[in-house]
C-alpha cells in the first residue's frame, strides 16, 4: 500500500538484564573478567554435578513486544503511556538508534528524529556554527540549512547573538535556537520525543504552534509526550503503550481517556505526613485530609470540563473559632493558580468547634480547559493574616473533554485553547438587525 508511511510487524526489542548491579551502566574490565571466570567455574561445577548449564544471572526484558501498527502518510500520531511503557524505546528503534531484536519496520520517506532538543550542540561554537552542525546531525544538507538559515534565526529570536558562542547563551536562548533548527527540518516523517517539555510557557506555545503548522503541511508525525494537552490538540490518533505492548491505538480522545482512567491517582489524601509544599504555623487549625468526588459522590480524579467537583476537607481545630475563612486552590500543570475558591466570597463563615470539622465545597461548574490540575487548600483566622495552614498541590486531577470520551451529552467540542485556561458558560443568541 502506497499511503502507509510507517508499518511495523511483530516489532520487539529485548534487553538483557543483569541481576546483580543492574544499575551499573557500564562494566569495568575487572568485573567482566571476574564474572567470566566465576561463570565458567560455576558452569564447570554444575556440569560436574550433572546439572543443567544455564545462565542464571541474566534475564530477558522485552522493552517492546509484538508491536504491530500502520501509520498513514500525513497522520499525526501521539504516543502516550506511563514511564517505562516503551515509548522512548519505540522511537529509538524507529529512528534507527538501536536495532530491533525481532520483527520488521518499513518506513517510506525521509525520517528526521528529534529525541532531544539541541543534540550535538557544541558550547564553544557560535550560534551560526551550531545551526550548521546541528542541522547536519539531524540530517539536513548544507544547502538546505543555508536556504532556511534566516527563517531559523528569526524563529529563535537570536539575531544579535549569532556570533556569540552558545555557552554564553541563556538557557532560554539555547533551547529556542535548538528547537528552531529542528522545527525547520525538511522531512516527510518527523519523530519527536517530549520536546515541548523545555522552555517557558510562551515558547512552548510557539513550539506547539509550529508543530501544528508542520502537521497541517501533511507530514507524518510521531509525537511522544506525557502531556495530554498537546497530544489532544495536535494529534489525529494516539497509541497507548503499556509494558511494551500497544494497549490501544486509534482515536486520540478515546485513547487519552483510556490512559487517564488508567492512571490510579489518589482521590483522597491524609496530610499527616505530607511531603509536598506546605506552610503556616498551624496554631489554631490544621488541614487533616482532602478528598474529591464527582456529582454522584463517587471518589474520582478524572472530570469532564464543566462538570461538578466536590471537595471534602477535614480540618482539626484546637479551639472554638468564629469567622475563620478557608479556600480551595486549583493550579494548572505549571503551577499557575487558576482558581482560588474562598469561603468568605460566598458568605460562608462556619463556627469551627475544637476537634475535627468536616466541610464540603461544591464547585458546580469546573470552568477550566482540559489538562492536568492540582488541588490545594488553606485556612486563615481572618483576612489579612497569613494562612495558619496552607497546602499546595495535595491532589492531582485530570480535566478532559467528555465529548472525546464519547459522552453525547457533553457540550464541548475538540478544543484548541491557544493558552486560555478558564472557560465560562455564556448565553448566546442571535438578534434581528432591527432590534434595539
Amino acid at each position: 500500500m502506497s499511503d502507509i508511511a510507517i508499518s511495523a510487524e511483530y516489532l520487539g526489542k529485548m534487553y538483557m538484564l543483569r541481576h546483580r548491579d543492574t544499575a551499573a551502566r557500564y562494566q569495568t574490565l575487572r568485573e567482566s573478567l571476574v564474572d567470566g571466570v566465576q561463570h565458567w567455574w560455576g558452569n564447570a561445577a554444575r556440569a560436574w554435578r550433572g546439572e543443567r548449564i544455564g545462565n542464571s544471572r541474566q534475564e530477558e526484558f522485552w522493552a517492546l513486544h509484538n508491536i504491530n501498527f500502520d501509520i498513514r502518510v500525513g497522520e499525526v500520531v501521539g504516543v502516550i503511556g506511563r514511564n517505562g511503557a516503551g515509548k522512548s524505546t519505540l522511537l529509538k528503534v524507529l529512528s534507527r538508534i538501536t536495532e530491533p531484536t525481532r520483527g520488521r519496520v518499513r518506513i517510506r520517506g525521509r525520517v528526521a528524529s528529534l529525541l532531544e532538543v539541541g543534540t550535538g550542540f557544541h558550547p564553544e561554537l557560535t550560534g551560526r556554527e551550531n545551526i550548521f552542525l546541528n542541522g547536519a546531525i539531524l540530517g539536513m544538507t548544507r544547502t538546505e540549512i543555508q536556504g532556511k538559515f534566516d527563517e531559523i534565526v528569526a524563529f529563535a529570536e537570536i539575531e544579535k547573538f549569532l556570533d556569540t558562542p552558545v555557552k554564553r547563551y541563556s538557557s532560554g536562548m539555547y533551547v529556542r535556537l535548538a528547537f528552531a533548527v529542528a522545527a525547520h527540518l525538511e522531512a516527510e516523517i518527523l519523530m519527536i520525543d517530549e520536546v515541548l517539555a523545555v522552555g517557558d510557557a510562551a515558547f512552548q506555545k510557539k513550539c506547539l504552534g509550529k508543530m501544528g503548522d508542520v502537521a497541517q503541511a501533511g507530514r507524518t508525525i510521531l509525537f511522544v509526550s506525557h502531556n495530554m494537552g498537546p497530544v489532544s490538540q495536535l494529534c489525529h490518533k494516539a497509541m497507548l503503550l503499556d509494558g511494551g505492548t500497544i494497549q490501544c491505538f486509534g482515536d486520540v480522545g478515546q485513547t487519552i481517556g483510556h490512559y487517564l482512567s488508567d492512571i490510579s491517582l489518589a482521590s483522597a489524601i491524609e496530610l499527616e505526613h505530607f511531603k509536598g509544599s506546605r506552610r503556616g504555623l498551624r496554631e489554631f487549625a490544621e488541614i487533616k485530609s482532602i478528598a474529591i468526588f464527582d456529582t454522584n459522590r463517587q471518589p474520582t480524579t478524572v472530570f469532564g470540563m464543566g462538570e461538578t467537583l466536590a471537595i471534602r476537607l477535614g480540618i482539626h481545630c484546637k479551639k472554638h473559632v468564629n469567622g475563620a475563612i478557608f479556600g480551595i486552590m486549583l493550579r494548572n500543570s505549571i503551577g499557575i493558580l487558576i482558581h482560588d475558591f474562598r469561603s468568605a466570597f460566598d458568605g460562608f463563615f462556619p463556627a469551627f468547634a475544637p476537634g475535627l470539622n468536616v466541610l464540603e465545597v461544591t464547585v458546580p461548574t469546573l470552568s477550566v480547559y482540559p489538562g492536568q490540575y492540582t488541588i490545594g487548600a488553606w485556612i486563615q483566622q481572618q483576612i489579612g493574616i497569613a494562612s495558619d495552614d496552607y497546602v499546595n498541590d495535595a491532589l492531582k486531577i485530570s480535566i478532559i473533554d467528555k465529548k472525546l470520551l464519547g459522552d453525547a451529552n457533553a457540550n464541548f467540542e475538540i478544543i484548541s485553547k491557544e493558552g486560555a485556561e478558564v472557560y465560562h458558560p455564556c448565553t448566546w443568541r442571535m438578534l434581528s438587525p432591527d432590534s434595539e
Partner: protein
Amino acid sequence: MKFSTDAIPTQTLVLEPGRIERNYWADLWRYRGLFFILAWRDLAVRYKQTFIGIAWVILRPLLAMIVLTVIFGRVAGMPSDGGAPYALMVFAAMLPWFLFAGSLSEASNSLIANAALVGKVYFPRLIIPAATLVTAMVEFMISLLILFGLMFYYQYAPNWNLLFLPAFILLALATCLGPSLWLAALNVKYRDFRYVIPFAVQFGLYISPVGFSSAAVPEQWRLLYSLNPMVGVIDGFRWCLLGDVSRLYWPGLMVSCLVAASLLWLGLRQFRRTEKAFADLI
C-alpha cells in the same frame, strides 16, 4: 555535501535485526556530509579559549624534539642515521608518532565524548572516530611544514625518496585507525581503557624508535622489533625525508605493514560487531 536521500525522497527503509550490517558501506558513504561537519567541529573547537591557540601545534613537537635530542643524542650519545643532524632524525620520527599518539587518544575517547549523539541520533558510528583522524592529520601537515623549515635551517636537502612519503602517510593512518577503532569500541563497554591509553601512549614513545635510530637495535632483534608497526612507519618516514643515509630495512617494513593491516582488520571487525549496541551501552 549532499545526502543521497534527496535524490530519492520516497525510498523505503526497512528496519529489522541485522539490516544495518548489510547496508553498512553504502550508509557510510551517504553520511559523508556528517563526517566533514564533525571533523570541522573538532578542528574548530580544538584551540578555542587557549591563550596561544594554534601555536600549540608548533610548540609541542618542537619541545618534544629538543627534549629527545638532548636526552638520546647528547646525554646517551646515541648515533644518528648517517650524516643527518640528530634533531632532524628525531623530528622525522616525531611526525608519525604524534599522528599516532594524537589520533589514538582522541579517537578512543571520541565515542564517549559524543555519547549524546550516539544515544540520540542515527548515523554509522564509524564516522566519529574517523573524524578525529582529520584533526590529527591537519596537525600532522603543520608539523610537516615545520620539518621542511628545519631542513632548510640545517641546509639538508631531501632526495627523490620524498616522493614515497604519501604511501607512508597512508601506512601511518592505517596503523592509527586499527587500534583506535578497537579501543574506541572497547571504551564504550569498559571504561578502563580511558586510563590505559595515556599510559600506553607514553610507553609507546620509548618502545618505538622515536628518540633514537632503529639501526641502534641489534641486527638479530630487528625483525622482532618490527612487530611494533610504528617501527616500519617511522623507518619509512626517515627514509623518505632524510634520504639514503637512513637505510630501509625491508623485511622489517613488510612485517610492520602486515601487523598494521591485521590490526586494521581486527579493529574494524571489533567495531562493527559491537557498534549496534553502542546506543544501549553508552
